[in-house]
């Protein structure tokens, strides 16, 4: 299928270090003209960093980028655009009040010779954009119309962007890149915001564009998209290129393995097959929507018992956040029941959950876990301020409590009056863990408790969670890190598209199998299996049978 295609872009030995991590570790691969090249990897594998380097947003510490035999110096997105690299970000960069045409013109390349009506010198800020808006509209309009016709875009250039839906806005972004003569188009998780129908439409369009010679980099962690829509795929893991493969030569399971890693399973300490009796949290037929009003949790049943860790495996975006938020009262469910202990707390406010001894380690510790301008002391007592006095707070007692947390949970701060925002990720997470665990909860929801923190803190937090289990706390551990799930859990459920598609004991759990459930290539959910012909065909293609 791909013969004699010439390399259009070559990335060689890119290294990018951030304090404490190597985000890209000698990454090399090349793009062939007219291909759709998948870039596959888990969150944090280094995909976004690499693409930001390619788009001139970050400078690489080492390495070279060559386009059509010419070495590129990419200091800003402007350079990337000049070189013919376009990018469609996950969050669109459009101005809602302007029309499609105006949005496209705003990004116009500097015209070589100044037009008569626009003698703006270069040093004027935004001179490029201003000049673009001053140029003759009809000319631009003609070009946009032509592009729309050629690729069948179905967009009215005179419509204001705020009137467009998400799929249309994405098409405007693509159109914008094409208008700037992009030869290589980077799409960052383009289907994350789209419905299945819109996704199909998008891939149809990409096919048409690549037939015309455009080269596409598709960043994703969805294996179906890789299998169905790419020509070749480069897999990244921990900042390194694992391999670049021809699509079709590697099965879905194979790709999943490359993505997640072949690491030997961590031996779980043998807990003599325990019998869990009293449930601390029960969820029945729970349904909930995300911010956009799309159903994210679709009829979910789950029970967590005293002294048990239930691991929720899955790629994020499959309803994890919504599930966690429902379980602590932060999000309203649309249907179903949540029972904590023996009380029905469905759609009760967060306070009721806090009072029922539910603790929560949120996914985003900065956005949801702490009050950044306030002190460590205040953050330490945020959830239990009432136990330091109903009306007046006994700050001496609170200070003692905070200092205890800081010491017990190894939070490294000069003193408890430090503002929370000055803590490193790991220290902040330890502080949050301390706050949530020190109150000895009956039920703990931990959403990605170890993501993005240093190795030492990761180990520490895992230990603390295991200790807490011994204290009798029922823990729901949500994580994208399959190793973590396998290492920590007594029971494992796999969340896929808002449903539990698989449940297993940690004893009998097998990483490969869970990997397949995570990506949706296997599904125990009966209703789903019967009706979903697409998935069956996907299973066939990957050559794996249940």
């Amino acid at each position, binding site marked *: 299928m791909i013969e004699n295609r010439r390399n259009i872009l070559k990335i060689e030995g890119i290294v990018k270090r951030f304090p404490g991590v190597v985000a890209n570790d000698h990454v090399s691969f090349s793009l062939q003209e007219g291909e759709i090249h998948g870039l596959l990897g888990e969150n944090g594998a280094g995909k976004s960093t690499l693409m930001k380097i390619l788009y001139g947003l970050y*400078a*690489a*510490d*080492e*390495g*070279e980028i060559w386009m059509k035999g*010419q*070495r590129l*110096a*990419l*200091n800003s997105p402007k350079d990337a655009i000049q070189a013919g690299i376009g990018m469609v970000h996950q969050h669109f960069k459009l101005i809602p009040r302007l029309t499609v045409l105006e949005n496209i013109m705003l990004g116009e390349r500097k015209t070589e010779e100044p037009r008569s009506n626009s003698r703006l010198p*270069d*040093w004027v*800020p935004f001179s490029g954009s201003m000049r673009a808006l001053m140029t003759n509209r009809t000319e631009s309009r003609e070009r946009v119309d032509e592009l729309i016709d050629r690729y069948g875009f179905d967009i009215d250039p005179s419509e204001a962007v705020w009137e467009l839906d998400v799929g249309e806005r994405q098409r405007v972004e693509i159109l914008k890149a094409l208008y700037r003569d992009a030869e290589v188009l980077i799409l960052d998780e383009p289907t994350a915001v789209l419905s299945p129908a819109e996704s199909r439409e998008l891939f149809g369009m990409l096919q048409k564009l690549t037939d015309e010679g455009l080269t596409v980099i598709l960043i994703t962690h969805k294996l179906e998209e890789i299998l169905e829509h790419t020509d070749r795929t480069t897999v990244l893991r921990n900042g390194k290129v694992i391999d670049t493969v021809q699509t079709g030569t590697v099965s879905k399971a194979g790709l999943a393995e490359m993505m997640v890693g072949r690491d030997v399973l961590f031996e779980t300490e043998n807990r003599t097959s325990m019998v869990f009796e009293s449930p601390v949290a029960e969820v029945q037929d729970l349904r909930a929507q995300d911010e956009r009003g799309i159903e994210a949790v679709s009829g979910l049943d789950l029970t967590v018992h005293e002294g048990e860790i239930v691991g929720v495996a899955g790629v994020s975006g499959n309803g994890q956040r919504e599930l966690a938020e429902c379980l*602590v009262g*932060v999000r309203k469910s649309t249907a179903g029941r949540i029972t904590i202990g023996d009380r029905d707390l469905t759609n009760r*406010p*967060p*306070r009721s*959950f*806090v*009072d029922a001894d539910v603790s*929560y380690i*949120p996914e985003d510790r900065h*956005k*949801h*876990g*702490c*009050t*950044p*301008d*306030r002190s460590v002391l*205040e953050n330490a007592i*945020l*959830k239990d*301020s*009432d136990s*330091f*006095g*109903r*009306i*007046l*707070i006994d*700050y001496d007692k609170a200070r003692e409590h905070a200092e205890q947390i800081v010491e017990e949970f190894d939070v490294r701060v000069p003193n408890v009056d430090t503002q929370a925002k*000055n803590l490193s990720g790991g220290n902040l997470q330890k502080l949050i863990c301390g706050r949530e665990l020190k109150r000895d909860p009956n039920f703990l929801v931990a959403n990605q408790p170890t993501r993005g923190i240093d190795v030492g803190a990761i180990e520490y937090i895992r230990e603390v969670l295991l200790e807490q289990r011994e204290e009798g706390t029922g823990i729901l551990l949500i994580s994208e890190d399959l190793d973590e799930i396998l290492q920590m859990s007594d029971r494992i459920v796999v969340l896929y598209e808002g449903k539990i598609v698989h449940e297993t004991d940690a004893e009998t759990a097998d990483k490969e199998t869970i990997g397949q459930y995570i990506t949706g290539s296997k599904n125990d959910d009966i209703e789903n299996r019967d009706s979903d012909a697409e998935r069956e065909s996907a299973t066939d293609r990957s050559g794996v049978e249940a």
Partner: protein
Amino acid sequence: MKLPNGHQVEVSISRRRDPSPLIRYGIPVFTIVSSLLFGAVAISAVGVNPVVAYVTMFTSVLSWYGASEVVVRMIPLLLAGLAVYVPLRAGLWNIGAGAGIYAGGITATAVGLYVSLPGPLLNIAMLVSAGLVGGALMIIPGYLRARWDINEILVTLLLTFTMVQFNGYAILLMGSSEGVQSSETLSALAEFPRFFGTRIHLGAVVAVLALIAVYLLMNRTRFGFEILNFGSNPEAARQSGISKYKIVIGTLFIGGLLSGLAGAGEIAGIQSRLVPNFSPGFGFTAIAIALIGRNGAFQVLFASLFFAVVYIGAANVELVYSVPFAIVEIIEAVVILFFIAGEGIRRFELDVRSIPQSEDSSEVVNA
């Protein structure tokens, strides 16, 4: 951006992690000094030497009378400043201290005219009812914000205009006779007592008590703790079980209450009857006061002192040099503008570098 000599100018703006003390304490000073400098431009524009005008402005308040007038002016400014300050700490903008002032003034007048109580009880009843009505009024924007996320800036601002009009109507209702632009005059019993033979009235005591109460609220009570943490991150606060309704409605209620007290003081302490526009922009000056003093209740006190001095001083300057009193409004507006600019400096750092570049930049290797 490229310079003629081939140098590339690189401008980068990044978040300042830990603002130095110089920046933190320098910004309020910078704000005040630069607004005075701007005011100087305006003063020169009307043909007066700004140095002379400023000297007059600040020395005229040094007399016994001038100082007492500063205190008199501080009463509404401090109360209104605190009325903006409390919601501000919860991340809410109360632009409607003026509305509370009018509500309080109207209520105090009504109670003073139509309720008969012995001695000091009448004054207390006037204050309490003025505070409660002011607070009740602010429940409207509070509930709208908490329940439907309707912007409290707009609602409180519009309430100010509503209350200005309602004040006119209230004057008609409580008017003495046809054609007089004020209500009936309060009895001597209803008027607030004055001290030391000056115009300093009972409101000063109320303002000091309010200042101490707000300080304790923020630094000692659990509600204050919740306000501060909600202000820092509403999401995290909510997840910790802090009720959004309690904070949003509660802080705006307190704001309304404090401005209601300010209104009562102006009517019963100064005017002795309800008059139109008895709050000449106090509600808006309060915003500037709360911004400068937003780090603590006592900083609000100093900010209100500054503005009281400017107010009284400017009145004297107007008298002596006929510099329009509008100079106060200029200084006030510039304070707010400079404060916002200062905020930018506090939160971000700007780094401008010039990098030499060869002519053919496309061949330059950038590792």
